[in-house]
């Protein structure tokens, strides 16, 4: 067709009613003219009219013929097929609903998982220019076979890396913090990003108002106190008024607002988007004198993340090689400051230019792996749903066999018939896909809360990437489910089928259906085994003794916001706060700590007689005030806890964990042993003295939940941090501390000097964060497993029920020949159970061969656990039994009389 013709047809199609009218009008005019001429030839008016009519012929047929010219006949055919399909589906609401719901579950599961994984791992950050050329820097070291990957480095390392990489077009530093923002009552904890001035060059973002800061404002040692606020903060806190030049206290420094970021700008923050962006060189001064004095002097403090944009023509591998040599050089200059930096030959330093999203990076962690697994599970759910839908379609096609045969006999081409069946499937897929998006949106709310950082946008309906995936899923489902049955349907022997009633010629087809039922059953078994393993694994993780009772404990972080105090004032203030906490209603105890569980650090520790303590593992410390062990309910197994007597000037003391005592002094009495602990304000002085072990505490999980040797030592706050610590633990009488959270927060904030405030959260939250990745796998596996089971049950039920319908006649004959209803029930049930059993055997075989891939995600749980396997097997067979219950009772009612009469 030429363009002119298409346009002509289009306009004709739009005027098709008018054109039809015109045609009829023309032809009637013709008849009249012809009749007139015939009259002139001598015919009577009536005869003339009749003759004219005869000659002109059927106006309607001409109309039909002409219709081909008006529009797009092929489009009309498709529209006709769609109408036909819609009518057919409306007439079978049970079938339609089942298929749409099944597809929706399968597609929804995939859309939701894709939505999450895409956001966590793949979708480029908003405004990031040319994301393919941007990398995050990962530095790896492998010490004694254990590889550590890091994304945060000392600021000096950032300077080294940016100086020593020639393949990088630009390098930027960023660092995420939570600071108090605002003054007085209006102070809120906000997400603050410290970024280098070069950071903004990575983005195609223009400030809504004002400007971003430039290089002159980001100069060490202390950058200019200027801030860019997020569009959201501008909207919520400032009502979009003119804010340029206004003062904004961030942390302990007053900044001047110079710009507002565009809406939705989150930089490269993987967690919550930053509310305020400030020059990274102002962060250390905001943290205190220790940070300010050390961040340019040495390499001890890891806090800077590094982004790199490659020059054109360089790939990530070549940048990685350059990063490695830069890392080696940087380590050399670190060694010049601190000779104890291990030689490169021992740690094998490696630089990697990896994905900006660290969830897709080399140190993605268990959560990413679990997520990818669950995405695979979602695909399996879709496959099960497809098997089910294919089965239903097959059944529908077989039920319509007579109709199809008649239509074939009447001359419908096979191609047209297949096209119609596929159109029906496409319509179903479209409905299923739409319902799936809705399901994903609803179910996704739960998943988002579980998986995505706060403030993530999760509107799937406007998210074309997820929509595209849902559409592709729907399309694939259609192809997988419709083509087979459609071809099968048209491959019939006309004569035989027309002669035969529903009694004959279905046995062969039902074999395909049984195969589908077995396939979906087997996939369900695999999923259920996975679910079972993850659940048992979580149970084991949750049963791990933590060595403390976190539920009734609140963690309190003090933020003085730079309120100037000397050491004595500081100590007094903290003592006052501790005392204030202790007398709050419902509070039974309080203690200072330097870091809460799972954030403890390793410190300078030497033991006489042991050459390299690092070889034994990681020893972390906790600085505590008296009462700590009571607050945490960590039992002292031998010796004593830290008491009020352990003050400055007295003998330095430590309590060590049982595991640490056994590792350092195996078979010997640990009490009274001497440790050299280089910590606190005068590390050299304390390291020179003996810190005596006075007690043995039960092991407690302070480094990591599962992968932790539990090597901990506790030292006295009065001896190692006389000016006081910035965190406290408060134990309440209630079983759940969160009920006291607000009261404690308000009371302690009142006690804080100046603009200071406290941040309180239940300690259990910290523990839960570490349980999360375990629970995540279990929750999602169980959810998808249940989904799969439900879908498979429906499939099994449908298949058995259909078979019973088909065999009603045969069953009636059996009954007439004397079969008891028990025999009939057994016949039907046995068929279902046999299918189920075959599915179980195949499913378990698949599960056990996939076991070694799942094993690393499980905790002290064999991936070929016989108990899990048996329970799933029994459950599946029982489910098959259940699915056959209803059809079996129907089979029991097979009527011998009806059967015989039909014979």
């Amino acid at each position, binding site marked *: 067709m030429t363009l*002119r013709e298409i346009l002509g047809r289009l306009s004709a199609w739009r005027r098709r009613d008018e054109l039809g009218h015109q*045609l009829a009008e023309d032809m009637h005019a013709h008849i009249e003219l012809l009749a007139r001429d015939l009259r002139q030839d001598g015919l009577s008016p009536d005869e003339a009219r009749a003759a004219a009519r005869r000659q002109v*012929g059927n106006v309607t047929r*001409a109309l039909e*013929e002409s219709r081909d*010219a008006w529009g797009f006949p092929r489009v009309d055919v498709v529209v006709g097929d769609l109408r036909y399909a819609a009518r057919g589906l409306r007439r079978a609401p049970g079938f339609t609903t089942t298929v749409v719901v099944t597809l929706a579950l399968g597609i929804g599961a995939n859309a939701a998982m894709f939505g999450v994984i895409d956001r966590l791992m793949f979708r480029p950050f908003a405004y990031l220019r040319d994301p393919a050329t941007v990398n995050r820097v990962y530095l790896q070291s492998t010490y004694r076979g254990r590889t550590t990957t890091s994304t945060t480095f000392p600021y000096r390392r950032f300077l080294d890396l940016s100086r020593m990489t020639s393949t990088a077009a630009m390098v930027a530093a960023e660092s995420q913090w939570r600071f108090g923002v605002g003054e007085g009552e209006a102070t809120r904890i906000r997400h603050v990003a410290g970024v280098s001035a070069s950071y903004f060059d990575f983005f195609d973002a223009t400030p809504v108002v004002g400007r971003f800061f430039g290089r002159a404002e980001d100069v060490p040692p202390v950058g200019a106190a200027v801030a860019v606020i997020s569009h959201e903060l501008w909207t919520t806190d400032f009502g979009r008024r003119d804010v340029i030049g206004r003062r904004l206290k961030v942390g302990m420094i007053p900044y001047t607002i110079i710009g507002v970021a565009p809406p939705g700008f989150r930089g490269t923050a993987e967690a919550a988007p930053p509310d305020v962006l400030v020059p990274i060189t102002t962060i250390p001064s905001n943290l205190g004198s220790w940070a300010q004095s050390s961040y340019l002097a040495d390499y001890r403090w890891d806090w800077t993340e590094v982004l790199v944009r490659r020059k054109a023509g360089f790939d990530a591998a070549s940048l990685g090689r350059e990063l490695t040599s830069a890392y080696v050089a940087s380590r050399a200059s670190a060694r010049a400051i601190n000779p104890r930096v291990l030689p490169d030959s021992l740690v094998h330093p490696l630089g990697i230019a990896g994905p900006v999203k660290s969830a897709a990076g080399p140190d993605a962690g268990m959560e990413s792996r679990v997520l990818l697994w669950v995405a695979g599970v979602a695909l399996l759910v879709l496959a099960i749903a497809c098997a089910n839908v294919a089965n239903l379609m097959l059944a529908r096609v077989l039920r319509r066999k007579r109709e199809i045969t008649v239509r074939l006999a009447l001359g419908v081409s096979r191609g047209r018939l297949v096209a119609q069946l596929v159109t029906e499937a496409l319509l179903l897929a479209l409905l299923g896909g739409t319902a799936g998006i809705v399901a994903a949106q609803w179910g996704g709310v739960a998943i988002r809360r579980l998986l995505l950082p706060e403030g993530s946008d999760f509107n799937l309906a406007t998210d074309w990437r997820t929509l595209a995936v849902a559409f592709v899923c729907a399309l694939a489902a259609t192809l997988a489910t419709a083509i087979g049955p459609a071809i099968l349907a048209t491959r019939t022997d006309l004569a035989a089928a027309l002669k035969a009633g529903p009694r004959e010629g279905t046995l062969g087809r039902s074999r395909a259906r049984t195969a589908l039922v077995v396939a979906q059953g087997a996939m369900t078994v695999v999923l259920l085994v996975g679910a079972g393993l993850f659940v048992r694994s979580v149970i084991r993780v949750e049963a791990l003794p933590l060595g403390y009772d976190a539920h009734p404990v609140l963690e309190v972080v003090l933020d003085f916001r730079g309120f100037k105090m000397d050491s004595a004032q500081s100590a007094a203030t903290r003592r006052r706060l501790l005392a204030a906490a202790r007398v709050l209603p419902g509070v039974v105890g309080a203690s200072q700590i330097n870091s809460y569980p799972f954030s403890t650090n390793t410190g300078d520790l030497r033991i006489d007689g042991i050459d390299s303590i690092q070889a034994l593992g990681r020893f972390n410390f906790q600085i505590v005030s008296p009462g700590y062990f009571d607050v945490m309910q960590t039992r002292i197994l031998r010796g004593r806890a830290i008491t009020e007597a352990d003050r400055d000037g007295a003998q330095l003391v430590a309590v060590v964990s049982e595991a640490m005592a056994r590792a350092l002094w195996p078979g010997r009495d640990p009490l009274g042993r001497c440790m050299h602990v280089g910590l606190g304000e005068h590390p050299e002085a304390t390291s020179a003295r003996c810190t005596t072990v006075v007690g043995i505490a039960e092991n407690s999980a302070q480094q990591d939940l599962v992968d932790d040797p539990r090597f901990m030592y506790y030292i006295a706050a009065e001896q190692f941090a006389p000016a006081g610590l910035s965190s406290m633990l408060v134990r309440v009488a209630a079983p759940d501390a969160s009920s006291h959270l607000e009261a404690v927060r308000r009371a302690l904030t009142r006690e804080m000097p100046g603009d200071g405030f406290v941040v309180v959260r239940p300690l259990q939250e910290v523990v839960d964060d570490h349980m999360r990745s375990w629970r995540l796998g279990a929750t999602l596996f169980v959810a998808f497993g249940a989904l799969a089971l439900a879908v498979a049950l429906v499939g099994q039920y449908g298949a058995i029920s259909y078979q019973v319908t088909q065999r009603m006649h045969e069953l009636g004959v059996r009954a007439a020949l004397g079969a008891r209803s028990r025999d009939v029930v057994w016949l039907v049930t046995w068929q279902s159970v046999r299918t189920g059993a075959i599915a179980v055997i195949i499913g378990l075989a698949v599960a056990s061969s996939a076991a070694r891939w799942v094993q690393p995600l499980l905790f002290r749980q064999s991936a070929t656990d016989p108990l899990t396997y048996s329970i799933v097997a029994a459950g599946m067979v029982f489910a098959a039994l259940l699915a056959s219950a209803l059809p079996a009772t129907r089979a029991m009612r097979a009527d011998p009389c009806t059967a015989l009469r039909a014979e």
Partner: protein
Amino acid sequence: MNAPSPLLAGTLDLLILKTVSIGPMHGYAIAQHIHRLSNDALRVEEGSLYPALQRMQVKGWLASETKRSPTGRQARYYRLTAAGRKQLIAEEKAFRASVSATTLVLEGTKP
């Protein structure tokens, strides 16, 4: 009178175009014209004529307007467009070429 012969396949368009090239005409006149000029040998089926007229309109070869005929009744008059004229020349050329080629074969083959 011999019974009118059916049209040669594919010549209807050509005949219509040629007829209308004289000047605007309504459908009945077109049919009459073809009938007459062929010495009553060719008869256009009304059931094909009108769909053909519409098809050629959609293709842009013809345009139509309602006019009062000399006898005083309303009728749709079809006229050739520029594209139609081009089409007419092309079809006429192709037809003549085909006829002369067919004739050559018929003449040159003796039984």
